[in-house]
């Protein structure tokens, strides 16, 4: 057996060192990992992938620690991928998420791995997605991804998850504005942590109000599609259900959600309060996370979401490859040359662009073969 196949076999057999080694190969973009990943592919797709995101310091790691305990009570094998930022100046990092969870490190059914962002984002989402697949193939039932904070970068990483928990805390002030401005859409389950502090109930009400507005406006959120499907599932007799695909569309989602509202029961995602420090509310949170998964499975949305995510990942990976061709020295000097030609009116911008695109395509094909 060759080294790649052997490594895959060890990962499959639950060899923690092999799994950890393979994740390091992924992190440093080691091409020799690919054969192993290809072999492991057959065993992926079984785990429930859970994203935990929210502002820095909101208690994501503490919460993850308690979620792990609760999942262990339910006899699940759990893996955690915890991401912390690398220093942009030295490339070094202090990965501190593990402090809150290290008591699980002697539990053989728990695997925790810290990843540093290592500079660029495309690389991080690739590494995270590959690491999650390895852990999936290694037989972990639930895989939790803890992100760095809230922002555009998170959306990329979180996109790998089936269920996303968006954590907020009381007293965030302007941060709630940040959440309003675009991150809200990515949540499936909403959690207001640090509920031992003043103002938690107010944050719950604010989030509910935002979610309600989003639904009534017909905004395309992850949950609006799910609730529309669930509603359709219960409303439509089985015999006709397979033909009615259009309730995955935003318009139908809006329509059904609105109908529900007219009956006084607007379906909103759960907004829960927790005290991660003490574990209060965590059982309900895990119930909500698991109920979300059940809903995804029963409506068939899990498969649809995974297909969408994978299509997005393929697009990202292709863009990364094209980018690397574009950054090649040869392309750079070609671009400088084209820029001169445009400035000297020997050609125009769009002709130059077409020319660049053709040379890029040729270089890309050459690199591939």
């Amino acid at each position, binding site marked *: 057996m060759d080294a790649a196949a052997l490594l895959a076999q060890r990962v499959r057999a639950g060899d*923690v060192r092999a799994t*950890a*080694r393979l994740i*390091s190969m992924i992190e440093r973009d080691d091409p020799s990992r690919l054969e192993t990943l290809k072999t492991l592919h057959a065993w992926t797709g079984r785990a429930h992938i859970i994203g935990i995101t929210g502002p820095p310091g909101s208690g994501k790691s503490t919460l993850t620690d308690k979620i792990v305990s609760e999942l262990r009570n339910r006899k699940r094998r759990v893996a955690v991928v915890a991401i912390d930022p690398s220093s942009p100046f030295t490339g070094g*990092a*202090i990965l501190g998420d593990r402090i809150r969870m290290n008591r699980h*490190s*002697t539990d053989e059914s728990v695997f925790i791995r810290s990843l*540093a962002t290592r500079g660029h984002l495309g690389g991080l989402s690739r590494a995270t997605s590959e690491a999650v697949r390895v852990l999936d193939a290694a037989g972990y039932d639930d895989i939790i991804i803890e992100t760095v904070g809230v922002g555009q970068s998170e959306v990329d990483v979180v996109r790998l998850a089936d269920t996303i928990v968006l954590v907020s805390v009381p007293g965030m002030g302007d941060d709630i504005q940040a959440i309003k401005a675009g991150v809200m859409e990515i949540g499936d389950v909403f959690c207001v942590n640090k509920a031992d502090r003043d103002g938690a109930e107010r944050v719950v009400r604010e989030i509910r109000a935002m979610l309600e507005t989003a639904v009534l406006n017909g905004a395309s959120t992850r949950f609006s599609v799910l609730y529309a499907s669930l509603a359709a599932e219960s409303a439509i007799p089985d015999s006709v259900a397979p033909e009615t695909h259009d309730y995955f569309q935003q318009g139908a989602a809006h329509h059904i959600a609105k109908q529900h509202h007219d009956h006084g029961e607007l379906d909103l995602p759960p907004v829960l309060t927790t005290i991660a420090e003490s574990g209060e509310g965590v059982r309900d949170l895990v119930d909500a996370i698991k109920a979300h998964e059940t809903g995804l499975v029963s409506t068939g949305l899990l498969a649809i979401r995974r297909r969408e995510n994978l299509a997005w990942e393929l697009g990202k990976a292709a863009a990364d490859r094209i980018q690397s061709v574009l950054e090649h020295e040869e392309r750079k000097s070609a671009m400088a040359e084209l820029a001169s030609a445009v400035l000297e009116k020997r050609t125009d911008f769009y002709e130059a662009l077409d020319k660049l695109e053709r040379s890029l395509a040729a270089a890309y094909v050459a690199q591939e073969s």
Partner: protein
Amino acid sequence: MERTIRVLVAKPGLDGHDRGAKVIARALRDAGMEVIYTGLRQTPEQIVNAAIQEDADVIAMSILSGAHNHLFPRVLELLKDKGVDDVLVIGGGVIPDDDIPGLKAAGIAEVFTPGTPTSATIDFIRNNLKRKA
């Protein structure tokens, strides 16, 4: 590509001060290393399992409570039991000179006592990694 060095910084034992550990963690980060900080009161079992899951190149332990003669060798013993022979293990903290030869014989590669500049630890790690790229 240059390999990023991953260091697990741990505080075994019962003492509740981790200022020294945090100082070294920051110095290692500033030297471009990735530091997995596991916090206070870690058992040797927790340290070794964490190092394996994190695929650390180095385990750096700091101890002030005086239990080093028991806890440091225990970490090496557990590594050996698990067949891990390529992790560099170093120690620091309040450790009497007389204890150092015994710790080294047990497999602690180097012991850094208070006052050692962090640059010495950084250089030692860079020059003594057991795993090369």
